[in-house]
């Protein structure tokens, strides 16, 4: 089991003849992803790494029955590529492209929603369900099949955390990079909801960073709806306000979006925040042990309560 992508994922690659698109199409295929086609207008009929290329997403979908698309086209064309994928009936679109204008994203998001589709990204590394499917650019060599769900706003920081888990023999159900931009298609809450519902996921790692209030919103959601242990890390504690730290979304403005506020919000709902990615596996282990205790405790309390009420009745 896994979330969003699995063995049933039939993937097309938009921008498959480009430098990044062709390289990663091959990488995904090697990993075992069912890459059924690619799209580059004007290159229909050719092949990349044995994968058939189509002129339009519409053609690719009708010929192959694809249900997922990954986008590697340049920023000026990325939003049109999202419209095209969703308009052609694709239900999961993963946009890797970095540098997409936020205003364009604001316009495409309602369209994606209206068609009942899901967009992940832009400016993200994509996702991987170890042993099942990889959509995007995450290195397949660092993951291991298991039951920790990973969700992150970053790329290489995600790899760092995944590697820490894998080195400690803690495999992953699915690892999702949701992207570092201001307007993204899928946020922490969407992923938390999916991990909570996924039977193979036993614990969740949420990697946040400065800027916005997604982590704070996620903390509230966890308190209300998530029963599985959640461990976090927040990047950007040493970042000064008002400066863009690489990601468009990572900017502290008007005193909000600081790491301190985020850590406080997470701690408040019982989510431990690691001081370094290397501490994440240890925190998960602790929490999973602790969780059993709390479960027992609450059960014990209930029994005790019943007894006292009984006494009162007497």
């Amino acid at each position, binding site marked *: 089991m896994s979330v969003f992508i699995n063995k049933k994922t039939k993937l097309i690659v938009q921008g498959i003849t480009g430098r*990044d698109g062709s390289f990663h199409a091959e990488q995904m295929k090697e990993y075992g992803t069912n890459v059924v086609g690619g799209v580059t207008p004007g290159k229909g009929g050719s092949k990349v790494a044995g994968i058939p290329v189509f002129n339009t997403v519409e053609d690719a979908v009708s010929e192959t029955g694809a249900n997922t698309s990954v986008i590697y086209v340049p*920023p*000026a064309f990325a939003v049109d590529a999202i419209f095209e994928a969703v308009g052609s009936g694709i239900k999961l679109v993963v946009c890797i492209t*970095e*540098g*997409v*204008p*936020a*205003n364009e*994203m*604001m*316009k495409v*998001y*309602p*369209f994606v929603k209206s068609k009942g589709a899901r967009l992940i990204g832009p400016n993200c*590394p994509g996702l991987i369900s170890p042993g099942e499917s990889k959509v995007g*650019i*995450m*290195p397949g*060599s*660092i993951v291991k099949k298991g039951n920790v769900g990973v969700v*992150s706003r*970053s*790329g*290489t*920081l*995600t*790899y*760092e955390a995944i*590697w820490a888990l894998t080195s400690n023999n803690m495999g992953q159900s699915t690892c999702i990079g949701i992207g*570092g*931009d*201001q*307007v993204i298609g899928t946020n922490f809450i969407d992923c938390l909801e999916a991990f909570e519902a996924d039977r193979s996921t036993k614990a969740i790692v949420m*990697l946040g*960073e400065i800027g*916005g*209030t*997604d982590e704070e919103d996620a903390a509230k959601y966890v308190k209300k709806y998530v029963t599985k242990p959640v461990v976090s*890390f927040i*990047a*950007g*504690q*040493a*970042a*000064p306000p008002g*400066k*863009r*730290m*690489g*990601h*468009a*979304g*990572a900017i502290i403005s*008007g005193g909000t979006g600081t*790491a301190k506020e985020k850590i406080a919000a997470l701690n408040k709902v019982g989510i431990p925040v690691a*001081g*370094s*990615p*290397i501490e994440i596996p240890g925190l998960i282990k602790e929490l999973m042990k602790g969780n059993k205790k709390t479960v027992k405790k609450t059960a014990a309390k209930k029994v005790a309560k019943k007894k006292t009420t009984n006494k009162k009745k007497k």
Partner: protein
Amino acid sequence: MKVHEYQAKEVFDAAGIPVPPGKVVTNPVDAYDLAVEYAKPVMVKSQVHVGGRGKAGGIKYAETPEAAKVLAQKIIGMDIKGLTVKKVLVTVAEDIITESYVGIILDRATKQPVIMVSSAGGVDIEEVAAKTPHKISKLHVDPVVGLKYYQARNLAYKLYREPSQVKKATDIILKLYDVFWNVDASLVEINPLITNTAGEVVAIDAKLNIDDNALYRQKAIAEMRDIDSEDPSEVEAREGDLSFVKLDGNIGCIVNGAGLAMTTMDLVKRYGGDPANFLDIGGSSNPQKVVTAMKIILSDPKVEAILINIFGGITRCDDVANGIVAAFKELKPNVPVVVRLTGTNEEKAKQILKKVNLPFGDTLDDVVKKAIELGKVEVK
């Protein structure tokens, strides 16, 4: 990207939003001449990318051209929150009756632009927002439908009662919304939007931040970038296609990926050091980027050690290693350099780095500690 007030006013003026006449000058004599030309009292306003200019003494009223000259003399060269004033805007002073606030920002949570207005505008708007948030009215706009006339009018009624002023403010809000979209802004703001004794509604200050991702299609705005007001190392980094922010510490950092670069900085602090910069070489493995990165960091005299942390994914460690070797040949660094390379082609990278015999760290935490330690030794 931020633009100066005078540039934002040019954009607003072109969109039909009323702004007082004004021009930017770089010396007191020009300030004098302008005040003579306007034949009215003027404001002399420092043009720096920082808030709270007025409170810092960077905005002054001048009754006469002589006063404008004296004030321009005083303000040009002034230091405001670490930035030196190089230009002042000389603009006709308005006789203010009321001060309001109008701003539009992108709301990440709803993925929509949100318009905010308040009749309690002026220098203390942040305090108003923090202490009396009910004094600020907000409207989320459906980005597909756009802002409708009645919506802008409803907002205008939050500011004024007098029908002609409501009409003028409605018009300004609609035009400001157009500016927001047309220039790919991440923020547009008029604070204050004033009414004067003639009953006019005028934007006497203007703020405009542009989405960096959209600069490729906003050529006119991109040209407004004031390279003079930026740190030269940040300018060089941008030209070298690196994402760089200068900080004050002693440990230079070269990392791939923004999240990991921030994490590396955090760990430097955590283990008792102080990061000298944020630097993300990005996803590509171009060895030249490493050379440029090293050059920029070495130009900072405060740097006592350099830490290179690469988690290879698309970035191939051997390419980075080649960049490091080239940088050593070209720049001959006089501070210790500590490296951690892991992921794609890690073994090849280690072979290549034997040429320069650098201390290696296996984990992120190791390499950070090592860099801090070596930085200290160097000081002694």
